[in-house]
C-alpha cells in the first residue's frame, strides 16, 4: 500500500525531541575551535547623523579581539542613492541599525565592550508617519528628492464606479508585525587553510546566502560554503543572508579567527526585518442585488529604512492578488512604497498576499453591510466559478484551479452557520453583554510565484538505500518526511532507507530554497523527475540482469524490486543489485526544474468570536477552515502548516503589532510588550478537507505554508466587526485590542 496521503510521523522529530537539534549556537565543529564572539552595536536613535565614533576605550577593554566600524570595512556595499551599508556610515536610519562590531574572547564580555563604544549622534527628525514620509519634508537619503522607493500615485479612472448603485470606501491599516521565530538569527564562520569561507547560517536559502556573501566580500562564489544546520523558523525573514552575515565573514578574515554570533531576543525584534506594514484605501462598488462591478485598491507600503523586499516584492504581490476570489469586471490598483525611519520590511508568512486578501475581504463585508445582505451571500454571487478556470484576473494573475463556492459552503455547513446566526440574534435581542460575531474570509493566494526553479538529485546507493539532495531548505516544516514519502512511494524503498539532505552548498551547489510555499511543489516535483530518470536507467540495468527486454521489466513497488512483467516467479533483482551493476557513475540523476509555474491555493474560513461589550475584549471561540492546496502527501505535516498558519493569522487580527512612538523608538521591543499568541488564546481548529489538484506541476500540489495565515486574519477581523454590527460599528482596525473595540462601540453609540 502506498504511504502517500497517510499520517506518517515526522522523521525529523526523534532527534529534535531526544538529543535536540543542532542550531547554529549548538555547533561544535572543529573548524570553530577558538572562535571569537561577536555582537553588533546598534543605533538607539531612529534618525541621526553620526558625529564621531570613539572606539579607543572599547579596544582597550579586557578580552577584546576587535572593534570595527564602517570606516574599517574595505568592502563595497550596495550601490545607488538608497543602498544599505553593511554598517551605518555617517547616518543611522532606524533603531537597531548596526553601527559597529565588537569581537571578544568570551561571550559575556560582549555587552560590556559594546557599552564602551562611544558614538556621538546628532539627531534628525524621525520620519515615522506614512503621510509625513510621503510629503518628503524630511528625506532619509541625501541625493534623493523623495522618500518613495517604488511605485507611484496614479490618476484613477474617474468613471470606474459610474454604473454602481452603491460605492463604499475606507482606509484600512494592515499593521506591521514581527516574525519572531523561536530561533533568533545566528551565524558561525571560519576561513580554511584553502582560502575558503565556511559559514553556518540560520537561513532559509543557503545558496542565495552564499551568493550574497560572495558578492559582499568580493570573492568568487566557489570560495564560499554555506551550511544551514537545523533552523528554528524563519517565516520569510531568514531568506538569504542579512548584512550582519557579510560583516561577520569580513571580520573573521580580518582577525584570522573563527567568529560566532547570535542576537538577543530584543535585537531580533528590532533588527530582523518586519512584515506587512501597508495602508490600504479600498473602494468597492456594485449593484444592490449583490453584484460587485468595480474595485479600487490604493496601497501605501511602509518599506522601513532601506528598500528590501518591502519596497517592490510585497506590494507587487498585493497588486497581483488584489481581486481575490471574485469575478470583478473592473479592478484598479496603485501601489507606492515609502521609506521611514523604522526597521526594514520584508517577507513574512504570505508576503503581500495576506494584505491583498485582508483588503478585499474587508471591502466585501463593507459592501455587504451597505446593501444589507449576508456577507456569505455577497461572496457567492461574485465568486469565480469552477468552469471559468484557468482564469485571468484584471490584475494579471492566471489562476489554475479553484472551487471557491464549494469551500465556503463547506465551512458554513461544518460551522452551523444558520444556527450561529440564530444564536447571534437571540443574544442581541436579550441584550446580552457578551455578543457573538461571525466572520468570513474567502481567499486565493499565489505560491511558488517567483519563477526561479529548483534542483533535486536522487542517488541509489550500492546497498540499495536512497539518498536525495533537495534544493529546498526546510526549517521546521517536516519536509524531509514528505520528500522521503514521495521517494518511498516511487521506488518501493522503505522510509528508513531514504536519507534527505539539504542546505550545504558544497553538496547542493545550485538551488533556490524555501519561501513562498514553494518547497513541495518545486522541490518535491523535481525529486520526482529525478526519480523518474533514475527509474528509466534502472529499468535498462534490471532488464540486463533479468535477461529480458527493458519493455518487459517493471518495478514492483510493493517489494521494491524489479521483475519481468507478468512473470513474478521468474525472479527479481533488488535496488542494491541494480545500483551495484550501474558502473562507475553510479545510479543517479541530478535535475534542474526550471520551467516552473505558480499555483493558487484557496480556501474559506469562518471565525466565531465573542465580544464583551463592556470591556471590549474579543475572544476567538471557533475557527473552521478549508485550506485547499491540492492532494495531501502527509496529513500530519499538512495540518501542522495549517495550525501554525491559523495561529499566526489570528494573532495579527487580535494581538500583534510592532509599534513605534513619534520619535521612532520601538515600543514593543521585548516579548513582555510584543504579544505573540499562545495556545490559551486559541480554540481547537476545525479543519475541513478539500483537495483540488493543480495542473501546473507533476505532483498536482499547491503550497500550504502560508494559506491558513491568509484566510484567518480577515475572518477574525470581520467577526469582531460583525459582533458589533447591530450597534452601528462598520470597521475596527487590527489588532482588535480591547481598547479599540471599546472605542469603536463608544464611537458608534455617539454616532461618530
Amino acid at each position, binding site marked *: 500500500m502506498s504511504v502517500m496521503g497517510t499520517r506518517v510521523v515526522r522523521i525529523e522529530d526523534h532527534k529534535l525531541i531526544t538529543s535536540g537539534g543542532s542550531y547554529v549556537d549548538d555547533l561544535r565543529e572543529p573548524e570553530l575551535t577558538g572562535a571569537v564572539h561577536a555582537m553588533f552595536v546598534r543605533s538607539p536613535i531612529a534618525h541621526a547623523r553620526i558625529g564621531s565614533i570613539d572606539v579607543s576605550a572599547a579596544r582597550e577593554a579586557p578580552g577584546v579581539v576587535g572593534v570595527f566600524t564602517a570606516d574599517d570595512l574595505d568592502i563595497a556595499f550596495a550601490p545607488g542613492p538608497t543602498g544599505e551599508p553593511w554598517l551605518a556610515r555617517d547616518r543611522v536610519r532606524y533603531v537597531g541599525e548596526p553601527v559597529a562590531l565588537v569581537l571578544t574572547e568570551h561571550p559575556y564580555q560582549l*555587552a560590556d565592550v559594546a557599552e564602551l563604544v562611544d558614538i556621538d549622534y546628532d539627531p534628525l527628525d524621525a520620519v515615522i508617519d506614512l503621510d509625513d514620509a510621503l510629503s518628503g519634508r524630511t528625506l532619509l537619503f541625501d541625493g534623493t528628492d523623495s522618500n518613495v522607493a517604488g511605485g507611484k500615485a496614479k490618476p484613477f479612472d474617474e468613471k470606474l464606479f459610474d454604473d454602481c448603485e452603491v460605492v463604499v470606501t475606507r482606509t484600512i491599516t494592515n499593521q506591521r508585525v514581527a516574525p519572531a521565530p523561536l530561533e533568533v538569527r545566528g551565524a558561525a564562520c571560519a576561513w580554511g587553510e584553502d582560502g575558503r569561507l565556511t559559514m553556518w547560517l540560520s537561513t532559509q536559502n543557503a545558496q542565495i546566502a552564499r551568493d550574497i556573501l560572495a558578492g559582499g566580500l568580493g570573492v568568487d562564489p566557489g570560495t564560499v560554503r554555506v551550511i544551514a544546520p537545523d533552523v528554528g523558523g524563519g517565516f520569510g525573514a531568514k531568506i538569504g543572508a542579512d548584512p550582519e552575515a557579510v560583516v561577520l565573514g569580513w571580520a573573521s578574515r580580518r582577525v584570522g579567527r573563527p567568529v560566532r554570533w547570535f542576537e538577543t531576543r*530584543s535585537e531580533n525584534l528590532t533588527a530582523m526585518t518586519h512584515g506587512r506594514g501597508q495602508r490600504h484605501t479600498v473602494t468597492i462598488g456594485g449593484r444592490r442585488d449583490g453584484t460587485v462591478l468595480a474595485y479600487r485598491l490604493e496601497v501605501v507600503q511602509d518599506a522601513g529604512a532601506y528598500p528590501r523586499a518591502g519596497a517592490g516584492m510585497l506590494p507587487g504581490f498585493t497588486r497581483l492578488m488584489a481581486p481575490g476570489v471574485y469575478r470583478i469586471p473592473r479592478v484598479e490598483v496603485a501601489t507606492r512604497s515609502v521609506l521611514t525611519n523604522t526597521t526594514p520590511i520584508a517577507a513574512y508568512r504570505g508576503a503581500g498576499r495576506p494584505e491583498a486578501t485582508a483588503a478585499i475581504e474587508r471591502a466585501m463585508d463593507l459592501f455587504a453591510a451597505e446593501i444589507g445582505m449576508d456577507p456569505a451571500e455577497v461572496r457567492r454571487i461574485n465568486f469565480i466559478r469552477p468552469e471559468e478556470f484557468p482564469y485571468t484576473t484584471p490584475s494579471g494573475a492566471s489562476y489554475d484551479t479553484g472551487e471557491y463556492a464549494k469551500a465556503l459552503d463547506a465551512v458554513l455547513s461544518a460551522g452551523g452557520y444558520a444556527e450561529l446566526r440564530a444564536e447571534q440574534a437571540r443574544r442581541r435581542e436579550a441584550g446580552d*453583554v457578551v455578543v457573538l460575531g461571525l466572520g468570513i474570509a474567502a481567499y486565493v493566494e499565489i505560491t511558488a510565484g517567483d519563477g526561479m526553479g529548483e534542483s533535486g538529485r536522487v542517488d541509489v546507493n550500492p546497498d540499495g538505500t536512497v539518498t536525495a539532495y533537495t534544493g529546498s531548505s526546510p526549517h521546521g516544516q517536516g519536509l524531509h518526511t514528505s520528500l522521503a514519502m514521495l521517494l518511498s512511494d516511487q521506488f518501493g524503498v522503505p522510509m528508513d532507507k531514504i536519507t534527505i539532505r539539504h542546505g550545504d552548498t558544497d553538496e547542493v551547489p545550485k538551488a533556490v530554497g524555501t519561501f513562498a510555499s514553494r518547497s513541495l511543489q518545486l522541490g518535491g516535483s523535481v525529486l520526482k523527475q529525478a526519480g523518474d530518470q533514475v527509474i528509466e536507467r534502472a529499468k535498462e540495468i534490471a532488464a540486463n540482469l533479468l535477461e529480458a527486454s527493458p519493455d518487459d521489466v517493471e518495478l514492483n513497488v510493493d517489494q521494491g524490486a524489479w521483475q519481468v512483467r507478468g512473470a513474478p516467479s521468474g525472479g527479481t533483482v533488488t535496488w542494491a543489485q541494480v545500483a551495484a551493476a550501474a558502473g562507475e557513475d553510479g545510479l543517479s540523476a541530478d535535475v534542474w526544474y526550471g520551467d516552473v509555474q505558480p499555483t493558487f491555493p484557496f480556501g474559506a474560513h469562518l471565525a466565531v468570536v465573542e465580544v464583551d461589550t463592556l*470591556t471590549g475584549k474579543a475572544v476567538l471561540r471557533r475557527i473552521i477552515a478549508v485550506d485547499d492546496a491540492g492532494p495531501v502527501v502527509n496529513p500530519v505535516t499538512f495540518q501542522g502548516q495549517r495550525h501554525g498558519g491559523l495561529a499566526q493569522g489570528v494573532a495579527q487580527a487580535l494581538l500583534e503589532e510592532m509599534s513605534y512612538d513619534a520619535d521612532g523608538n520601538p515600543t514593543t521591543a521585548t516579548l513582555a510588550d510584543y504579544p505573540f*499568541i499562545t495556545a490559551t*488564546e486559541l480554540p481547537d481548529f476545525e479543519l475541513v478537507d478539500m483537495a483540488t489538484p493543480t495542473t501546473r506541476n507533476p505532483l498536482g500540489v499547491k503550497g500550504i505554508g502560508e494559506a491558513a495565515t491568509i484566510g484567518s486574519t480577515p475572518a477574525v477581523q470581520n467577526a469582531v466587526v460583525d459582533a458589533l454590527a447591530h450597534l452601528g460599528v462598520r470597521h475596527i482596525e487590527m489588532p482588535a485590542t480591547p481598547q479599540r473595540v471599546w472605542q469603536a462601540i463608544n464611537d458608534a453609540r455617539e454616532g461618530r
Partner: protein
Amino acid sequence: MIPVGFSYRRASTVDEAVGLLGEYGDEGKLLAGGHSLLPLMKLRLAAPEVLVDIAPLADLRYVRTDGDTVAIGALSRYHDLHHDEVLRQHAPLLAHVAGAIGDPQVRHRGTIGGSLAHADAAADLPAALLASDGVLVAQGPGGRREIPAGEFFLDPFTTALQPDELLVEIRVPGQDGVGWAFEKFTRRSIDWAIVGVAVLGQSVGLINMAGTPIRATRVEEALAGGANPAEAAELAAEGTSPPDEPHASAAYRQHLARVLTGRALERAAGRVPAGL
C-alpha cells in the same frame, strides 16, 4: 541579555542575610525568585554589585495558622501558595491570586516576599494583600517589626522596608466564609493585568490604577453606607491615576476599573454576571 558583572553571596540563615545586607549597604540586593530582579539586570536596567541569595532559606517557605491569623513565609512560591490546603481554606483569595500570576515557570520561581518587596503597581499579590488587610513582618539588625499593608507601598517600586531589612512573613486575618473575587483583565492568559481588582468582603484592592497598589476607598465607603455593588462600582475610578499608554489609555483603565469592580463585587456576593 548579559548583566553587568556582580558578586554572589548565599545566605543560609535569616540573620546571615540581614548581616550581609548591612555589610554591603546600597550595593547589595536580595535575590529571591529572581523573576523581577534578573530580567532587570539582563536588560541592564539594574546593576547591583552584590546579590545576596535567600532562595535557599527553606524555613521561610510555609503557610500556617496562628489563631485567627494565617502566616505565610516570605519565600513561599506562588505554586506552593496556589496549592496549599491551609491557604485555600483560610485565605482563598490569596491562593487564587497566586495561581493567576504569569505562567507556570514564573509560579514555580516567584515568591510572595519578592513580589511584595518589588512593589510593582501592576503586580497581583500586592493589591490582594491590601484588600486582605495583611501585615508584613520585616526583620532587620534590630529584630522584627510589623508593617500594615496599607503603610507598606510608598511609591512606585518603593516600600517601607529599610535597606538592611528582610521581609520574613506575611500575615492575614482568616478569610473563612467571607466572599471574595479576583478580576484580572489581560489580553493573553500569561499577561500582566491591564487592570485588576481584588475583593474581599467589602474591601477592594486595585491593580495598575496608580503608582502603587491602592484600595478603592470610595467604593468601600459607599458599600459601608449601604450602596449596592453596581452603584458602588461606579466610584471605582475616583482618585485613581492609572498609566496612560497607547494600548490602554488612562480613561480606558478607569472604565475597566468600574466594570471589573462591579463584576468582582457581584461575584464576591455570590452573584456571577456574564463577562469574558
